[in-house]
């Protein structure tokens, strides 16, 4: 974990050890994870299932919270408070089960206790369904209050994930790398949190102020992005943050630190990385919207609906980025991160092409098979619906399987 930052030393891929794994084990494991995903979908999300959290915002907020906790637990705190000796000696299934249950439980506590019963009851009400309901007023009904509160949590948690991963990918555990895993984890935890809260205030808070009637004009500025985004909705920001987050993931996962690791100066590398990732996320958002114009032969416009709804378009960029991230994890975890030639640049390029193509293919499968397997309505652009529920859930399962369960049972490490 101490080599997490992108440095010339980190050229060895975090997943290169997978290359030697037998492909059959990867395929069998992937099938296993997909079966588990279907079972999880039925249990957690499905309208015909048990918990039925596909409201959809409650379910989306829940999986994003769990993803955030897993990042904290694995990437930031290096599995603290679990003892190293237990982590190394425990069998993969028991280790995976204990860790996954602990992270899911922590996510549940954050969402339904911290946000719902503490922060949202004694501070900003908009994080809590019951908090919003306590004030009463037009439009504050259990269903709408819950959906709005969960969306606010999604905004905050996405911001936390992005800035935490940005810090850790750019700087690693600097300036706390010499401390214990808890202490240095705490440093990154608070650094990511600070940046995330500041970003939340500027990028998402204006949306929340204007999601009430009348608008809470003394709470925040009018959404300042409207002229460019064609919408007052903060979904605009998901359009660039999520692709930028995926680029951060890919720095380690697919690119073995390239191209940033080619910059020898640590300070310059950090500045270039931050600026380049933000700029690339923004350009991906604009380019994706142009592609959608071409694909559907329709342009989004202010006030448009479904495919012509700018807010949906920006969110769909995030959805597409997550499809690609799922494909990248599958490639890295189950197919040995192919190819593994001597040329890191070539490896990175081919893996990126595969991840993007895989993401597009996965997207196609989602919309084609979703009505049969997930119970979604045929078509793209449903009001209030998002594929992020399924992709983030699958992302968690893939990540947990590879890192918490160590590829059990068909990929032994």
């Amino acid at each position: 974990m101490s080599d997490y930052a992108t440095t010339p030393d980190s050229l060895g891929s975090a997943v290169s050890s997978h290359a030697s794994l037998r492909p059959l084990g990867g395929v069998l494991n992937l099938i296993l994870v997909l079966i588990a995903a279907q079972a999880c979908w039925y249990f957690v999300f499905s309208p015909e299932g048990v918990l039925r959290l596909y409201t959809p915002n409650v379910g989306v907020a829940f999986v994003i919270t769990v993803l955030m906790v897993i990042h904290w637990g694995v990437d930031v705190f290096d599995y603290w408070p679990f003892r190293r000796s237990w982590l190394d000696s425990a069998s993969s299934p028991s280790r995976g089960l204990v860790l996954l249950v602990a992270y899911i439980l922590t996510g549940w506590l954050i969402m339904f206790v911290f946000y719902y019963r503490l922060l949202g009851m004694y501070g900003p009400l908009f994080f809590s369904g019951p908090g919003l309901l306590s004030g009463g007023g037009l439009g504050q009904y259990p269903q709408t209050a819950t959906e709005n509160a969960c969306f606010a949590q999604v905004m905050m948690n996405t911001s936390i994930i992005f800035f935490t991963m940005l810090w850790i990918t750019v700087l690693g555990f600097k300036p706390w790398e010499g401390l214990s895993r808890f202490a240095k984890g705490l440093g990154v935890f608070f650094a990511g949190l600070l940046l995330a809260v500041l970003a939340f205030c500027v990028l998402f808070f204006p949306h929340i102020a204007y999601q009430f009637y009348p608008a809470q004009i003394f709470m925040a500025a009018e959404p300042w992005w409207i002229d460019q985004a064609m919408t007052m909705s903060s979904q605009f920001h998901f359009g660039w943050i999520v692709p930028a987050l995926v680029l951060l993931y890919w720095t380690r996962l697919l690119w073995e630190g390239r191209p940033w690791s080619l910059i020898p100066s640590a300070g310059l590398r950090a500045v270039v990385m931050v600026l380049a990732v933000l700029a690339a996320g923004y350009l991906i958002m604009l380019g994706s919207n142009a592609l959608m114009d071409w694909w559907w032969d329709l342009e989004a416009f202010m006030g448009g609906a479904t495919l012509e709804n700018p807010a949906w378009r920006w969110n769909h960029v995030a959805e597409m980025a997550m499809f690609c991230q799922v494909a990248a994890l599958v490639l890295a975890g189950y197919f040995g991160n192919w190819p593994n030639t001597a040329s890191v640049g070539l490896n990175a390029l081919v893996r990126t092409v595969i991840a993007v193509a895989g993401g597009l293919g996965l997207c196609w499968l989602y919309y084609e098979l979703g009505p049969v397997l997930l119970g979604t309505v045929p078509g793209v652009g449903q009001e209030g619906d998002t594929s992020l529920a399924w992709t983030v859930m699958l992302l968690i399962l893939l990540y947990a399987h590879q890192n918490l369960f160590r590829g059990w049972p068909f990929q032994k490490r």
Partner: protein
Amino acid sequence: MERRNFLKGLGAGLAGVSAAGIVGPLAKSAGAADKQEIGECKSVTVHCISETSWFDSPQMLKDIKDAGGAMVSMYDIPWTQSNIGGYVALIELEQLDGSKKLIQLDSGWNQDWTDYVMEKSGLGKQLEEKKIDLLVISHEHEDHYWGLKSTLKRYPGIPMVVPNTFYPEGKALLQGKYKNDYSHVENDVPHTGELIELGPDDLYNPYPGMAIKMFDIPIMLKCRGEQNLFFKVKDKGVVAVTGCCHQGVLTMMHWARRNIAGFKPYGLYGGLHIAAFENWDPKFDDIIRGVKQMGLEKIGCNHCTGWIWASKARAQGLPIVLGTEKYRDYEKLPTTGQGAPENVYLRNGDVIMFG
């Protein structure tokens, strides 16, 4: 044609399913370059038979929430029967020669309520006397379609136009073969008249100055596809009449601008599906801005528009037509909007004329 369909068409080969044209008034909708001429009419008058699909929004939302949320199938929700009404509108189309056509839009939900408003408005008698020329079902949602029996028991042979995207339950309801005691929906009177099922590439032009367009869109509560009516009023412009308008008010009007020859924005009537449950979202401000830019002259809204949206839109200068107090004569009253300084909805019993 959408580029995606064009690519699919290439894949299908030269046999080209897309080449299968439909003759007569049911025509393939136009590409951007060749707009459709739908003719003109003299005026359009819309009678609000019932816009109260539910009387209490919190109860309606509770039913949905308790069942698992907006992605649950409407056929799997045990709707609170005392809270439901239905959506029905009667449209009088006056043609240039002075003759009239009567079109019923949607068939309500709760059968007792639907029977009640049909009798109160006179629509029930008109159906029994077969004076209604056409029944258009905007979409499969419970509040627009499940009261079908109230119409069919009076006039089983009524010509109908529906989206071609109904789920099997919706098709069985039309055939008089559906009963669901859990969600309380049933019909044992089969439809015996002409049935036209519109696809997304069709534009149905049954009478001069009127066209029906279906949008193939996914909709909450497991519904798919919605259609609306366009009227081209001579010397005035195009009026859109909607059920719920899940396709989006501006998406609908922009489609008309791109595809109807001589388009000029004029009016709107119906549910506009914006703040359907009286909650606000910054995207609703976008719609106010967009509708202002569109330049409509007359907007009569109700049902799922959201009282909150209509109020804010009117406050910001949109031409929202105010309703009367007639709705207070009905045996049940909606909770929304009570005590408000002005009635921004066209409610049960109200009438709006375009022309």
